[in-house]
């Protein structure tokens, strides 16, 4: 009998952000990419009181977890990223590109928390539209592009639209 979810509320930024939250790998790590994005509400306004969390495999497709028997693991790779949105709704993480894992294209799982979200919403960042990926191929082709990060200056851009036009695909996990 699970404990119910509740919103993080407007003051999540006193409790949840960590100084090193956005850096899944330290600044200066060879091959590091910056993923940036903006969270928008249904009126197209940025959401300044959201928190993004990311979880991913390392570049070899391994997870830092006992339920992944494939190890070994990289040092200085936390696999988990966390960033509150700023006043303009922007977040960023610095990480390494995830590797493919058996049967799935490279991806990052994302949780979005915010004031006004009574339960997190979950999405995925992909880096290419790979029709062989079973999750991507389960999504309406017209909406699939909301899951594909767009190349940007020193990495990728992945905006999140909570509602309305071009609404991001969210998953029931």
């Amino acid at each position: 009998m699970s404990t119910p979810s509740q919103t993080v509320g407007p003051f999540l930024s006193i409790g949840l952000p960590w100084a090193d939250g956005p850096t899944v790998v330290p600044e200066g790590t060879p091959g590091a990419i910056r993923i940036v994005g903006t969270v928008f509400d249904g009126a197209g306004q940025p959401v300044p009181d959201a928190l993004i969390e990311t979880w991913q495999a390392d570049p070899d497709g391994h997870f830092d977890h006992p339920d992944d028997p494939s190890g070994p693991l990289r040092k200085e790779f936390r696999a988990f990223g966390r960033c509150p949105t700023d006043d303009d709704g922007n977040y960023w993480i610095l990480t390494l590109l995830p590797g493919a894992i058996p049967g799935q294209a490279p991806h990052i799982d994302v949780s979005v928390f915010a004031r006004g979200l009574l339960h997190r919403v979950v999405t995925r960042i992909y880096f290419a539209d790979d029709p062989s990926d079973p999750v991507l191929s389960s999504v309406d082709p017209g909406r699939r592009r909301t899951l594909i990060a767009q190349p940007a200056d020193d990495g990728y851009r992945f905006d999140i639209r909570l509602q309305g036009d071009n609404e991001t695909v969210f998953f029931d996990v």
Partner: protein
Amino acid sequence: MYLRDAPGTHPPLDSPGYKSTKLRHPLQRPVLLPQKLTEITGPLLGEGRLGANDNDLTAQHAGEPQGQRIIVHGRLLDGNGRPVPNSLVEIWQANAGGRYNHVRDRWPSPVDPNFDGVGRTLTDAEGRYTFTTIKPGAYPWQNHDNAWRPAHIHFSVFGRSFTQRLVTQMYFPDDPLFDQDPIFNSVPDPKARARMISSFDWSRTVPNWALAYSFDIVLRGRDATPFEQEVDDE
């Protein structure tokens, strides 16, 4: 595989009584995501995340905060009744007067210079956690006419998988503000709602020092899968 929670356990994202959901709830139905390696694993965050006095919110400044000192303790469990050991628990809360130490909280109740309202700890081998803190006050908000949030402490827990991640709020028994609170009442099942209310715990009060409340947090359980064996073997 992690089991789905019973209908009515979690609030619908579209909860009109809580006005901020209006422009923030997705309109499209979520797409079913099969639980693969990314979902059954998750961050196992440890000691490196904790600083001194992170589990004692009354001892983070030179002086002591105002208010009723309380112990808040409980267990982090999965839906199979098993403890979740060595797992990060994060909390944040308002001070005794219901004011958050946050620039955007501007209601006319004073900030307490001796209270940040932020805590972290790790569960022990039996999944137990303990915080020492101050009983938070209720606070007004703009949701509806004369709206007040019941006193609560925000909790963030990870469990052992991406699937188990949970952010919730712990409430206090017999709060007269429950009836008018759309966030508390957004949980459809009254029995599930009751699981967010802590219990007064006489056995953990400290004479001449602190009252106590207990609050167990239950995360999604697993069904039998090949992964199950590994967990049992640990």
